[in-house]
């Protein structure tokens, strides 16, 4: 037993002895399943972009698939993401102040277009790189957004939240003793996307507070269902569930009124989520800003920090101010054109390079 090299063999033997025979169980499960969609023609599915991994083809005129109604109904839901409280001067952005927001935002949208155009041109030549982009061919198919288009007739420049297909906002109740993070702990920058380890479209199944041993909440965790995966550094499969953690964000600038405000995802809603992984756990990459939300009508609601994503078809979304220092109420934008997804993937890809 003490001979050299017996450890490896003994270890294997031990593990083999410990392993139960599960084949009959597996086979039974397989037999009960409907036939998997297969490539009966024997096409090579071991290529870098196997068809089984591909999202169904989206043409420039197609729409992103809506989440199943059952999923939407599964939970309470949502309205707009944030209600936060930060002084308008605290985080200087393109859209500051309520009264001037509409005019300023239009100017911002137009001036940002130039840089968006340049970015799009640069991205067009990079389509075949980065094999890890599982949907890369689709991103290329989307083309460089729709920057050359003129605003469609009748398209409102400003819409209100009430016009969007969003469910009611139902924030989690956060006890006063919760361990929170200040909302300005991290300012949003598109450059943050370089930390993306998983870019997906996901439906939020459940939101809950994580508590420590003493029962004190310290984070929010979301169970999400991966609807689509656009980029992954790891082997993660669509249709699987993930638990994603985010800090509890406190709006420090508005004590009393909104003492604890969550930049939280809404159960039942779908989002485009850049995620990162630390210590074997998934986290929202940009937890201190609203995530890109997909309305029930397939429109994309995003904040003005994504300057590259602003084009001529971008509408400004304005809601009622939730608090005296509500920062994001006039900084949300909306795109309903089919180029958004491709633009977002391209932006992420560019950041990763």
């Amino acid at each position, binding site marked *: *037993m*003490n*001979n*050299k*090299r*017996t*450890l*490896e063999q*003994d*270890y*294997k*033997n*031990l*593990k*083999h*002895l*410990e*392993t*139960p025979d*599960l*084949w009959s*169980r*597996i*086979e039974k*499960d*397989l037999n009960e*399943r409907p*036939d*998997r969609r*297969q*490539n*009966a023609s*024997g096409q090579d*599915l*071991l*290529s*870098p972009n*196997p*068809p*089984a*991994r591909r999202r169904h083809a989206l043409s420039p005129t197609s729409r992103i698939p809506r989440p199943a109604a059952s999923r939407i109904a599964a939970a309470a839901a949502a309205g707009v993401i944030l209600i936060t409280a930060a002084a308008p001067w605290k985080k200087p952005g393109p859209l500051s102040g309520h009264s001037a927001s509409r005019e300023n935002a239009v100017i911002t949208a137009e001036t940002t277009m130039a840089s968006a155009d340049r970015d799009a041109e640069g991205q067009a030549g990079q389509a075949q790189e980065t094999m890890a982009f599982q949907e890369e061919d689709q991103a290329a198919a989307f083309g460089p957004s729709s920057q050359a288009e003129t605003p469609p007739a009748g398209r409102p420049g400003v819409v209100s939240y009430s016009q969007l297909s969003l469910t009611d906002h139902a924030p989690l109740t956060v006890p006063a003793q919760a361990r929170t993070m200040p909302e300005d702990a991290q300012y949003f920058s598109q450059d943050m996307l370089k930390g993306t380890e998983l870019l997906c479209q996901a439906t939020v199944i459940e939101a809950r507070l994580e508590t420590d*041993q003493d029962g004190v909440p310290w984070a929010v965790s979301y169970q999400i269902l991966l609807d689509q995966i656009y980029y992954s550094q*790891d*082997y*993660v*499969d669509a249709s*699987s*569930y*993930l*638990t994603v953690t985010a800090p509890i964000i406190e709006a420090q600038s508005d004590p009393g009124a909104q003492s604890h405000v969550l930049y939280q995802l809404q159960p039942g809603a779908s989002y485009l989520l850049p995620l990162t*992984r630390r*210590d*074997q756990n998934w986290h929202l990459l940009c937890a201190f800003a609203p995530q890109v939300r997909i309305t029930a009508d397939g429109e994309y609601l995003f904040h003005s920090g994504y300057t590259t994503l602003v084009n001529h078809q971008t509408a400004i979304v304005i809601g009622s101010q939730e608090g005296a220092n509500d920062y994001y109420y006039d900084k949300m934008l909306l795109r309903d054109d089919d180029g958004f997804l491709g633009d977002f993937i391209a932006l992420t890809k560019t950041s990763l390079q």
Partner: protein
Amino acid sequence: MNDQRFEQSIRRILKNDKEGLREIYEDYCPMIYSVVLDILKNREDAEDITSDFFIRLWDIAGSYKGGSGHRAWLITIARNMAIDHFRKQKRQQPMAEIPDHLLQSPSPEDAVVKNISLAHALKTLKEEERQIINLKIMGQLTFKEIAQILNKPQGTVAWVYRNAVGKLKRCGYEQ
């Protein structure tokens, strides 16, 4: 099973041929089961997740990229499934109730003396050491692959492995 044979099995799966899955199962069930058991520390749960793993493999076979190190691919998927299961379970029961053991009562075959000795020797290892030993021996992974899976520096992995082997050596084993 080498990469070429693995790819052949995957191709059979993609043609709805269960023998393809069976081939992979026969070669890798002990590896997957031990990796999952290392995380869950519960035989029943490990059996469930191992079964689910092979069902999932049937579903996602098309996502395998040829020649990309199939053992690391399999282990990464299995670990993710086990960790996900562990998190859900953890949510349902206090930490104190999660059993803190690795290897439970020996199976009848453990009457083989040296295997009992090894099982006991393995209990002297730390959690991290057991995982690395398992990935190295059962998964036949390189230190680099293990480092990527466990998200640890390669040097640390190699050091922990050597340290663990050293402990086993003191228990009567050498490599």
